[in-house]
Structures are given as structure tokens and as C-alpha cells.
């Protein structure tokens, strides 16, 4: 690993995004729009917004970063730039960490913007600190990034890459405890949900919303989500081979 190459990669990814203001606007604007909609759809029952608002705040970065990363990586593969980089002294870790830094920055910006709107004008209340909320949302973004990187290895075209979103992300939505408490699920589904990262990320955000203090359970959730993210990154690195057929 090499700090210069890692930072150069992070800077390059951010420059690409800067040249694409529409994507930037979508990354930040769409979550704000959706969380605002959520607030007014449940205008008559504010308790529902108070319950689901924080969870949704964690789902946005996860979903958006998943899509952005899987498409970016696929493009890198099909345009020949990945092969060119791997024919250079650059290591896989330089690329992966560079990606993680760049998308991490994006996740922080997104989390800050959505949290500001949700906690401000939309009157969402959380017991925990704003820092914990933003940290949790950012970690969710990084988890989405790592999973997106991993699944992009299985996509040959952008069509396929986009279809991986419903395939990988939507089942986790259903099983993560968003629609029904995980304890009330059928035992089999409950067991499956124990193995899905989004279950822990929802748990984590719910704790931030509920508890004032940073409990050991919260730290535990944070570490589990982090471990899933690192695991997906390692799996995502495996298909980045220098030699291909």
C-alpha cells in the first residue's frame, strides 16, 4: 500500500463526481426528498416518522453507495482503465482504499445534509448525538460501497449491475427489521436475517435514536457492520486480478 496512490485514487474519484454535478445533486437531493415525503405521508401520525425516520436515514447511504460503486467499478473494468492500473505499480489496496475514502467523503456529505434536514425542519428527534447518527449513516454508506464493489465483479454489463440492487439490497430491506420486528419473523427468516449486514445497521441506528449514551450494544453493532464492510471489501478485492483470460 502506498499513501500517495491511495490519495490520488480518492481524489480522482471525487474529481469524476465533481465533473458530474447531476449525479452529485441526485446523491444528496434524492434522500432529502424522500425523507421529506416520509414525514408528510405520515403527517397525521408523527410517531411513525419518529420511528422510521432514523432507519431510513441509514438506508439511503447504503443503497446509493451500493449503486454508485457497482456502476463505477464496472465502468472501470469495461473501459480498460482497471487493466491499465493493474499493469502499473498500483496495488489493489491502493485502489480499494482510495475508493473507500472518496465514497466515505460522499457518504459523510450525504449523511450531514439529510440529517440536517430531518433533525431541523422535519423535527425528527433522536436521543443519541448527531455525531453518532452521522457516523452510523456513513458506516452504512461504506457498507453499501463494499457490497457494490463485491457484486460488480459478477456483472458484465451496466444492465446487470443495476439489477443487482434489487437482488442484493431489497431482500435485506424486507429482513432487516424495517417492516416487521426481527423477533416476530418465522424462525428460518430470523436466522437468515442474523447473517445479513443491514439487520445490524438498522439495529445500530435504532439504538442511536433510542439511547442517549453510547452503549456497548451500539459499539457492538458498529463493529459488526464494520466487519461486514471489511469482509465485502476483501471479497471484492479477490476478483481484481492482474491477469485475465
Amino acid at each position, binding site marked *: 500500500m502506498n499513501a500517495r496512490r491511495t490519495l490520488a485514487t480518492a481524489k480522482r474519484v471525487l474529481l469524476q463526481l465533481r*465533473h458530474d454535478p447531476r449525479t452529485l445533486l441526485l446523491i444528496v437531493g434524492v434522500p432529502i426528498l424522500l425523507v421529506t415525503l416520509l414525514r408528510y405521508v405520515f403527517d397525521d401520525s408523527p410517531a411513525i416518522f419518529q420511528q422510521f425516520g432514523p432507519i431510513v436515514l441509514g438506508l439511503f447511504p447504503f443503497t446509493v453507495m451500493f449503486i454508485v460503486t457497482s456502476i463505477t467499478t464496472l465502468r472501470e473494468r469495461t473501459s480498460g482503465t482497471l487493466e*491499465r492500473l493493474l*499493469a502499473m505499480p498500483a496495488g489493489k489496496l491502493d485502489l480499494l482504499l482510495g475508493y473507500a475514502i472518496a465514497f466515505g467523503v460522499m457518504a459523510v456529505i450525504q449523511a450531514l445534509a439529510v440529517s440536517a434536514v430531518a433533525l431541523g425542519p422535519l423535527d425528527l428527534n433522536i436521543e443519541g448525538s448527531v455525531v453518532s447518527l452521522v457516523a452510523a449513516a456513513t458506516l452504512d454508506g461504506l457498507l453499501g460501497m463494499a457490497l457494490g464493489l463485491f457484486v460488480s465483479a459478477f456483472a458484465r454489463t451496466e444492465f446487470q449491475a443495476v439489477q443487482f440492487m434489487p437482488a442484493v439490497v431489497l431482500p435485506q430491506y424486507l429482513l432487516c427489521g424495517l417492516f416487521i420486528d426481527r423477533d416476530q419473523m418465522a424462525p428460518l427468516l430470523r436466522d437468515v436475517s442474523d447473517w445479513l449486514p443491514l439487520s445490524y445497521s438498522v439495529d445500530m441506528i435504532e439504538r442511536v435514536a433510542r439511547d442517549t449514551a453510547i452503549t456497548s450494544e451500539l459499539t457492538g453493532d458498529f463493529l459488526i457492520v464494520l466487519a461486514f464492510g471489511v469482509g465485502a471489501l476483501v471479497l471484492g478485492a479477490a476478483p481484481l486480478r492482474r491477469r*485475465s483470460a
Partner: protein
Amino acid sequence: MKTKRTTPAVSIKDLGIVRSGKPVLSDFSAEIPKGKVVGLIGPSGSGKTTLMRAIVGVQRIKRGTVTVYGRPAGNAWLRRRVGYMAQTLSVYADLTARENLDYFSAMMGARASETKALIADLELEDCADRLVQNLSGGQQARVSLGVALLGAPKLLVLDEPTVELDPVLRRKLWQRFRRLARAGTTLFVSSHAMEEAEHCDHLFLLRGGRLLASDRPAALRRRTGSLTIGEAFLKLVGGNS
């Protein structure tokens, strides 16, 4: 009397490559001498790109060896000394020419000042700050070539570098290749345009994954009694089939 033979820049022995079940190169052996411009000529589908990828070290090979400057192709030492320009553009279309060169220069470990020199050298000053996707085909090709030139590589592997270029630029590019070779760089350049072959010191004629001939352009013409390399190629193909 024995003349001391210098070791070649690239030495390929009994190379065999299979892609999706089909042999692309079989029993391929050849040497590329140092400091020369060696052309790889052959129709599309003859295995030119696969051979170049094997030399760069990004191609999975089935048997045989590819040695570059005494080391196995693609090893860490070589990765900072071999410049590769693939047929696909292989630069970021959503970055400017300068940003591309800056980024790849950092990845290559090249000096930051090189970007500026290359932009001037490749006559990209007027479009250096425009996004690559908005440049003409010839400008895009020069950005990609610029990336391959970063870090002053000892060996340049260029896959159809002149394909998008007009005759004036094409001529300039071959002059540049000549200057680089004079300065000691080894160049391995593929083309499917037979008339470009005359610019090379040495030619590999490739057909169906086999080396049809390996010789100097003049010798090839003389041997086959042809006026052009294109004619020589056709005669060699006729004699082989």
C-alpha cells in the same frame, strides 16, 4: 569469431494462449531486440492484442514463457518500466486530459512535472483542460499514448496507436517512435495497416495465432520479390495455405 549477442528486450518461448476454449496463440516463439521499433502486423483476429497483453503481463497464459528484460512478464519491477497503450481508450472519459495524466502519473510513481512536458510534447495544450469525452478521436488517442509514456518506460507496447489518426498525425507519431528508439526505448507497435510496416526496424507477421515471418521490412520484400509489405504478406499467406 563469435559476436556477443546482447540479450533481447523481450523473449517469448513456446507461448500458447487459449481464450474461451479456442487457441489464440500456439507455439509462438520470438525475440524483440532492445532499442528497436518492432512492428506486429496481421489481420484483425490474428492474435496481435493477445500477444501484446501477454508481454505486458495482463494475459493469462496456458504454456510457454514471456521474459521481459530478464524478468517474467508483468512482475513488479517491470510494471514501472513497461508502458502499455491498449486498443480500448483506457483513460477516464469524465476527467480532463490533464487530470488523467496527473492521476496515472501518481499511480506510476512518475514525476509530477512530466504531465506538463507530455501535454506540450503531444500538442494537447489547447484541449488539456477539456473532458476527454469531448475530445476528438485523435486527441483521445494522444491522451492514452501520453499515459503510456509516463515514467519514461524502457519498453513501450502500443496496440494500434495510429488507428484514429489522420495522415499528418500518423507521420508525426512514427517520427516520435523513431526518436524514442534512438534514445534507447524498445517499441513494439501493432497495426493492421500494412503501409505502416515500412517505418519499423523489424516485423512480425502474424496470422491465425502463428508467426508467419519475422524479418526486416526490406528483407521481407526482397525474399518474396514484392514491392510492398502488403504484397509480401499476401505471398507468404499464399505459400502457407
